[in-house]
Structure formats: structure tokens, C-alpha cells
């Protein structure tokens, strides 16, 4: 069953990624097809996660690969909030290829099947893994919005003649959305990390590389919030900081998980 749901999700996300590329060349039909690809793919992946949870009777995304599966779902869910709107289609150009690649990696690691139930309690996994992944999904979107900001800002400076050819959200909108997304994500990460640390202390376990880099990531995103809300940072500077924070998210999600999940 999980197999039956994985392939449609992957193919539809793939179709969306290709559709968004087509939309760049000739805006219109390809973009609409891509949006439907995201919607239907998300439905298929939601069903896949439902089947995984039902079969394993709990929270089956505690392993590195299966957490990637859940992470992709969270990123696409957050993207769907704005992604269906025409000006945000360009965001799909970044988000959907990433979703396809990560979902494929999750499958290669065995994270999209059933039987991944963890020995940890469901409550701990939901609070720790669930919240940390939700926060990382938020940071991913904030980074995508910031990337779009940097790109659009450059166009506004260097090629005003063609600036209106493509519908892109206003700079102020991108800036505000990135801030709002981070403002939601930082508390989620704080809570998720705090729960993990409490458990670490109670069990007397040692810090690993992933925990250390996650702490640095948390600091960077807290600094982002602080500088924006108190230091008056906006625009390009804030966007670059968000992109730097995202690099840490990539390291935490892709380079270091083996040290933690092992």
C-alpha cells in the first residue's frame, strides 16, 4: 500500500517541478499543471504518511530516512499555503525539485515504507522530532522566500525593462512573509530542542555533532529574529542571513543525521 502511494506522490511532485520549469519559459498552462501536481502529490503523500502511522501504530518517522519523508511533507504543506497563488509559482521552482530529491533520498534510505516504529515513546517523538522538523520546514521556506527576494531585488536593479514580464511578489511582501515564517518556526525549534535536551540530561547521554550544529542553527535564527525585530534589519541583509541559516539546516538535515539517529 505504502508503495502504491509513494510512486504517485513522487511522480506528481516531479511533474510539478517540470511544470514550474515550463512555466518559466512560457507562463500559463504549465504553471497551472504544476500547481495541481503539488496538490495531488501532497494528497498522495498525506495518505502515505497516514498508512505508515496506522501500520506502525504510532510515530514512524523517528529514523533519519523516514524523518526526511515527513520533512518533505511539511515543506510542501507550508508551500501549499502560498504556492497555489500565481506570483509564488517561482518559489515552486526551488521547493519542488528539492522535495523530489529529498523524497527519493528518503526512499533510498527506506524511510517511505512501513515498519520504522521507534523504541522511543510516541509523545517524545511527536514533540521532539515533529517540532524540529516543522521548524526546519519553516526555515526552508523562509530561505526560499529570501532567495526569491535576492533574485527579484537584483532584477529590479539591473533589468527594469523586463521586470514586469513575470509576476513575482513585491519585495516588501517577500520580506514580511519570510519574517513571519521564521517567527513561527523559531518557537517550534526552541521547544523541540528543549525537549531533546531534557531527555539527554535525564538519560545522561552525550552531545553529538548534530545537536551542536542544531544549537548553532537555533542561535542563527534567533539572531535573525532579533536583528529584524530590534535591530531594524530588512531587505537584502536579512535575506542573506536567512540563506546562511538555511545552509545550517541543510547540514543538520543531510550531513549529520547519521551521528544522531545512530
Amino acid at each position, binding site marked *: 500500500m505504502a508503495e502504491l502511494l509513494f510512486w504517485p506522490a513522487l511522480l506528481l511532485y516531479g511533474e510539478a517541478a517540470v511544470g514550474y520549469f515550463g512555466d518559466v519559459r512560457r507562463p500559463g498552462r504549465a504553471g497551472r499543471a504544476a500547481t495541481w501536481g503539488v496538490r495531488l502529490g501532497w494528497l498522495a503523500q498525506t495518505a502515505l504518511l497516514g498508512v505508515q502511522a496506522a501500520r506502525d501504530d504510532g510515530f514512524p518517522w523517528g529514523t533519519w530516512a523516514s524523518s526526511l519523508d515527513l520533512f518533505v511533507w511539511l515543506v510542501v504543506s507550508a508551500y501549499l499555503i502560498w504556492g497555489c497563488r500565481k506570483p509564488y509559482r517561482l518559489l515552486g521552482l526551488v521547493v519542488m525539485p528539492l522535495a523530489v530529491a529529498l523524497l527519493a533520498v528518503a526512499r533510498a534510505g527506506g524511510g517511505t515504507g512501513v515498519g520504522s516504529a521507534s523504541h522511543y515513546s510516541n509523545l517524545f517523538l511527536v514533540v521532539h522530532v515533529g517540532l524540529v522538523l516543522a521548524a526546519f520546514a519553516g526555515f526552508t521556506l523562509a530561505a526560499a522566500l529570501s532567495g526569491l527576494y535576492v533574485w*527579484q531585488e537584483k532584477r*529590479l*536593479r539591473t533589468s*527594469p*525593462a*523586463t*521586470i*514586469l*514580464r513575470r509576476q*513575482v*511578489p*513585491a*519585495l*516588501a*511582501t517577500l520580506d514580511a512573509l519570510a519574517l513571519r515564517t521564521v517567527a513561527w518556526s523559531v518557537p517550534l525549534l526552541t521547544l523541540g530542542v528543549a525537549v531533546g535536551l531534557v531527555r539527554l540530561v535525564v538519560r545522561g547521554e552525550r552531545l553529538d555533532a548534530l545537536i551542536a550544529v542544531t544549537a548553532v542553527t537555533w542561535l542563527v535564527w534567533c539572531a535573525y529574529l532579533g536583528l529584524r525585530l530590534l535591530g*531594524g*534589519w*530588512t*531587505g*537584502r*541583509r536579512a535575506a542573506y542571513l536567512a540563506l546562511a541559516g538555511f545552509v545550517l539546516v541543510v547540514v543538520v538535515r543531510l550531513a549529520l543525521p547519521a551521528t544522531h539517529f545512530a
Partner: protein
Amino acid sequence: MIHLVLVGTSHHHAPVELRERVALDREAAEALAARLAADGCEAACLSTCNRTELYLATEEAEQAEREAVDALASLGPEVEPALYRLQDRAAAHHLFRVAAGLDSLVPGEGEILGQVRLAHELGTTGPLLDRVFRQALHAGRKVRAQTAIGESPASVSSAAAALAEQVFGSLEGRSILLLGGGKVSEQAARNLRSRGAEIALVANSKTELGRIDEELVGVDVVIASTSAPGLVLEASTVAEALRQRRGRQLLLVDLAVPRDLDPAIAELDGCYLYDIDDLEQIVAETLSGRRREAERAESIVAAEAEKFHEWQASLDVVPAIASLRARAEEIREAELQKAESLLGRLDESQRRAVEAVTAQIVNKLLHLPIVRMKQAAAAADGVLYAEAVRHLFGLGEDER
């Protein structure tokens, strides 16, 4: 047959000196339409700065055309050679193109749709003009909904407003500083105000220009178009203001030649500077985009014109169809009355059943001939078919 007649002139055929002679205000256009409709025909007058057109619906097409030509020619001796004359399908197609903005100086401009609506409202219209104007408005809306012909700015002033929206999103509550009071900058300011922005200061005099430094801290958009020979705003002044703005972005539009704003402002973080060349490039780019979209719009308009033609052609056979239906109904009712005396008394449900069955038989028998007549009408054989039906079914002279 009722014909649609169009007589008029536009920017394609007449220079502005001629167009201003035939341009009619609201009252004059209404009065002219009423005068032309006095003979019992339908009439509407579409008059804008780029065109004056008379639309008439009448059985006497030649006479109506002559009257319309006379009416416009009376406005100036040299008008008549610049007039175009179209009828029926071509006239409807022309009106649909006009409503869609395809015949406008700037393809896809949106104002024309309101002007067509006004012409319809002020006209003395009947079934045919009502139909053609409604369908023209529908075609105009459809073109704007299904193509991007009207989406991009077509003037320097609207390009400035579009750029402001690219930076700030909604312009509600944003403030503008106007340096100088040129016509184009006024238009740009008006465009921004129509989107919700407010004018903070119009700096025309030396005293007002001296206040620029402090105003720069609070405003979001600066539009400059003074006739000063040198720079009015230096990059260092803007840099100083930016320090106090705490990262808020500033859009500067320089419409003056020679330029008012220091080109080095473009290098400052948080500033977006555009001069008249940038805006003209945007307009040129969007106009070429509109022309590309116009090709798609033409096919929508052609399809709508075809629908109108089919409807107009079906008018030829409508009286014959009505007579045929009436005759069939007359026969059905007469036969039912005869049957009632033969069958004895029927209760209410039996009566309804017999009514339904006989009505169904009549409808089924007439369905195909009526469909074929309408098809023939669309292919210009309508009159022939109508005559044949009258002859075959013995429809009387009084019904013609």
C-alpha cells in the same frame, strides 16, 4: 432583414484635427443617436478621443448609412473621406475588436470598455443593437480575462506605479514626494494615488526644495521632474536619509531631462532609482507583450463575431418558425377537442397525459425542420427555407 450599419472614423483614418471635429460629448452623442433613431431604427453613438462611430439597426441599410454619413459630414467638410462604412458581420466584428481594445491606439487599454457601455446606455437601442452591444461588452471582458493584454502598464506614469508595486506591494498609506510639477510627474502621482498612496509634499519652490532632506526620511516614493539644469538630489543626501530610515526602502523616479537625481543613488542599499529611459524601456517591452497577446485576443473576438452572425442570420427564419409552431399548436388543440367528444369525459390526470403526449409528438415532428432552418439561416439560405416552409405548410400571408 434587420441590418447592422456602422459609419465612423478613428485614429487609423483621421488625424487629431479631424477627430476633434467629430468628437461628441455625452449629451451630443445621446442627441445624435436619438435623432437618427427618429425614423424607427435603432441608433447608438460611440464617441471617444480616438473615434466617433454611429451604429444603426434598420431594414433600410443604404438609407441609414446615408443618414449617418450626412450626420457626421455635417460636423466638418473634410470629414466624409475619412469615414469608414461597415455592415452586419463586419460591423459587429469591428465593435467587438473596439470593445476588446484591439482597435485602440494602445492595444488592450481598458477605458474603451466603459465607453462602449456608455454608448449602449445612451443609445436608442432595440433587439439588435442591444444584442450586439451586450455581446461586445462580453467579448471585451472575455479578452481581458483570458489574455494578459491589459495587465502591463502602457504609459510612463503607470510604469512608475507598477514599479512601486513591485517594491512595496500594496501602496495603501505609502507617501510620495514630488519634486517639481511636470505633467508626467503629475500623472505618475495621480496613478500612485489611485492605488492608495498619499502625497506628502510637492516641492516646487526653493523653500520647499530645501525641505527635501527631512522629507526623505519619511516618504516611500520620490518623483522628480523639475526643470533645474543640474542635480536636485545628491547621493550623499539620500545616504544620510537612509541611515535614519532603519532599512525602509525608497523608490526614486527621475522623469526630468536633464536628470534631477544623482545616478550614484542607484548604488545605495535600499534604494531603487529609475530614470525616464528605464520607464520608456518598460513601456516598450510591455507594449510588445500586448501585441503578442493581441493575436490570442483576435481569435476570441472572431469567435464572438461568428456567434453574433449566426444569431443575426437566424432572425430571417424566426417569423417562419413562429408561424409553423403556431399552426401546429392550433391543429393539436383542434384535434384534442374533437377527441374529447369521441373519448368521453377525461379526468384531470388523463387530460394532462393526453396533452403531454400530443405536445411531445408536435415538438418531435418540428424539432428537426426547425434545427435545419436555423442551420440554413446561418449559411445564408434562411429566406429560401422560410419560403419553402410557408408554402409546404400553407402558412398564410397575414403571418408574413
